[in-house]
């Protein structure tokens, strides 16, 4: 289990594409640059989607891992 302390945690369990990335973007928009968001999803597609989203938007995906059917992402707002 990665030990990063997030400034905010959001749980999007149960949501399907495209909701995880849309809601992640909204959450990041409401945060300050440098802050870290922890996002939880149950959508297997979100693993690939989150990497693509981070690449396109220029945000930093610090880590992603799977834990008991849940996908955990740590995103740092870099812009």
């Amino acid at each position, binding site marked *: 289990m990665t030990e990063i302390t997030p400034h905010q945690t959001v749980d999007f369990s149960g949501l399907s594409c495209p909701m995880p*990335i849309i809601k992640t973007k909204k959450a990041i928009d409401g945060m300050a640059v440098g802050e870290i968001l922890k996002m939880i999803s149950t959508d297997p597609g979100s693993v690939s989607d989150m990497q693509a989203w981070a690449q396109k938007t220029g945000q930093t995906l610090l880590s992603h891992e799977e834990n008991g059917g849940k996908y955990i992402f740590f995103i740092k707002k870099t812009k």
Partner: protein
Amino acid sequence: MPEETAKRLAIIALHGSMDMAYPPFILATAAAAMDMEVAIFFTFYGLELLKKGKIDKLKVAPIANPAMPVPMPNIIGMLPGMTAMATKMMNKWMKKANVSKLSELLSLSKELGVKLIACQMTMDVMGIKKEDLIDGLEIGGAATFLEFASHNAITLTF
């Protein structure tokens, strides 16, 4: 030299059935979440999606649709009530998989700044008036769409 990637997504929505309504909105909202500028041009049967109160009432016909998850011979598919049944089944699967309702995707699109353009020509051809359509639309023609799509855009048609 940094790679030039597309900044825009231009979608043409031509169809009015439920199954063809999802791709434009899902891709549009995902692209908007990825900081892309998005416009959807609704033309021909696509205008059905913009009629007031219609977005959650779209249907899908099983006839001549061999890829339906529950295959149905055409001779059965053409019977009265079969379209309603296929529509009901598809709605059930969408709900089970937690896919957002079309009306939710439509509101989300507007909220995320997706441009919704209604085709003027189709409105004239099919006798659709501005009052029949939802608010927040731009009315335009081919040139409006093409101008938007000409700036480094991914263009998709559904």
